[in-house]
């Protein structure tokens, strides 16, 4: 046996490991296949698909551009308003929760409890909040604002916490030595450090909230979702087309600008 054969025999064997993972994945795949059935696809669905594509490519331009309370532009504006105000509400509510969850500010058990609360808030689907809040405000955009606000809390607070835990505390020490009060320390020592991160996180969340706000109409919480589902249920695919085109263009535009502003914030 020469040295080359020896090395060949010494090759690490990870086939067993990779093989096990492959088998587990394949098993999961087959198992999850049991959830879907193809027998509902027939001639009819093909026709509907064709209608949908036709509608999307031949949008109702009248609906897209006229200026009334049913027009796409008006509804989009309402959606932006919901997303914006919802982000503000969420951003405000998230601040106290974030400080309560930051392990360098409050005792460990309290921070752990707050984190648990945040996980719970984050996991409840947005539409469930929507349905619950409609009982509070009645149907309409107001419910949408509150829903967007509550669903934003989870992510906003989590990202705030990361920023708070990275706070540079040496500044505070030096301020104490100069004789600053607690309020002064917060105003000139902490807020300047956190502001740009918080703003950047908020803009990012606003971007996401546009998507959230556009579906809330499904449960009657305002925005462009309601007319969208209404047009679908009545098979008016040209209207669906114009609504979707408006929505896609708006979201892409907001994404573009929010990326620009955030890049600027990071650079300072």
């Amino acid at each position, binding site marked *: 046996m020469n*040295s*080359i*054969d020896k*090395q*060949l025999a*010494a*090759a*690490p064997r990870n086939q067993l490991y990779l093989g096990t993972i492959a088998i587990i994945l394949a098993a999961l795949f087959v198992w999850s296949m049991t959830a879907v059935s193809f027998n509902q696809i027939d001639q009819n669905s093909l026709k509907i698909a064709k209608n949908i594509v036709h509608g999307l490519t031949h949008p109702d331009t009248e609906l897209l551009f006229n200026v009334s309370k049913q027009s796409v532009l008006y509804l989009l504006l309402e959606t932006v308003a919901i997303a914006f105000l919802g982000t503000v509400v969420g951003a405000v509510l998230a601040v106290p929760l974030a400080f309560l969850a930051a392990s360098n500010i409050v005792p460990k058990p309290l921070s752990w409890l707050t984190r648990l609360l945040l996980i719970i808030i984050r996991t409840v689907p947005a539409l469930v909040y929507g349905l619950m809040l409609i009982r509070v405000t009645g149907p309409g955009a107001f419910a949408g604002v509150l829903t967007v606000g509550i669903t934003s809390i989870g992510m906003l607070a989590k990202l705030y916490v990361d920023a708070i835990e990275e706070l540079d505390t040496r500044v505070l020490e030096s301020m104490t030595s100069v004789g600053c009060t607690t309020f002064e320390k917060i105003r000139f020592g902490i807020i300047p450090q956190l502001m740009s991160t918080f703003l950047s996180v908020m803009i990012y969340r606003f971007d996401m909230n546009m998507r959230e706000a556009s579906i809330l109409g499904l449960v009657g919480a305002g925005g462009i979702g309601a007319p969208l589902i209404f047009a679908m249920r009545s098979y008016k695919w040209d209207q669906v087309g114009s609504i979707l085109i408006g929505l896609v263009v708006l979201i892409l535009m907001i994404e573009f600008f929010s990326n620009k502003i955030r890049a600027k914030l990071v650079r300072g």
Partner: protein
Amino acid sequence: MIQFMNVTKTYTNGTKALSNINLTIKQGEFVAVIGLSGAGKSTLIRCINRIHDISSGTLLVDEVDVAKLKGRHIRKFRRRIGMIFQSFNLVTRTTVINNVLVSFVPGLPLWRKLTGIFHKEHKIKALEALDKVGILDKAFVRVDQLSGGQQQRVALARTLAQNPDIILADEPIASLDPVTARIVMDDFQRINKEMDISVIMNIHHVEIALEYADRVIGIRKGEVVFDGEASQVTQEILQEIYGGKWEAEKAEMEEQAAYV
């Protein structure tokens, strides 16, 4: 045999990289190409395996007109020409042997290409190639854990596994310290002599070039200004190749060597 006949290369932005090159390199020669950065050394080498296209003239490699090759035939042609790079160009996240095995990929059936499972025969050939450059014991180590010199030898082994007639080397020792550089150059020399593989090398270190190469080609502003045996190279010739900047170049090189 590689023949350049009136070869000219102009880039799309108008820069003339090579003008009117005439060269004949016989099988088994060890050629060093020297010159200032930007003189066209890299372009000259990359034209041989058609990484760059030539603009006019004829370039023959073993009677094959390189400029006329297309698609599949280019790739088949490249199989016979190995290439070594300044920055090694290895896949650092994977093992040494996997980096050598890629040499066999073009001939494999589709399922092997997709899964990356190689034949035992190929594995033995890859290990033999690693043995020839003296790093057999590193076969199953990840490349990013090797030193620069070891990485360049992995690249050499990859090229050897290809079983090439010609090896093109683009500044192979520029990223290495002087001691490692000599070890790698010894490898090149052994490969050149024992396996009768032509080596065409761009090189910045003139002393090393003169020591190892049989033949030196000096390039200045895209033109061949010297072509002859290494022993014929004098200070005056270097002055010409480096356009009066030879003293500065030399000083800089000595300074670099002093730091290592």
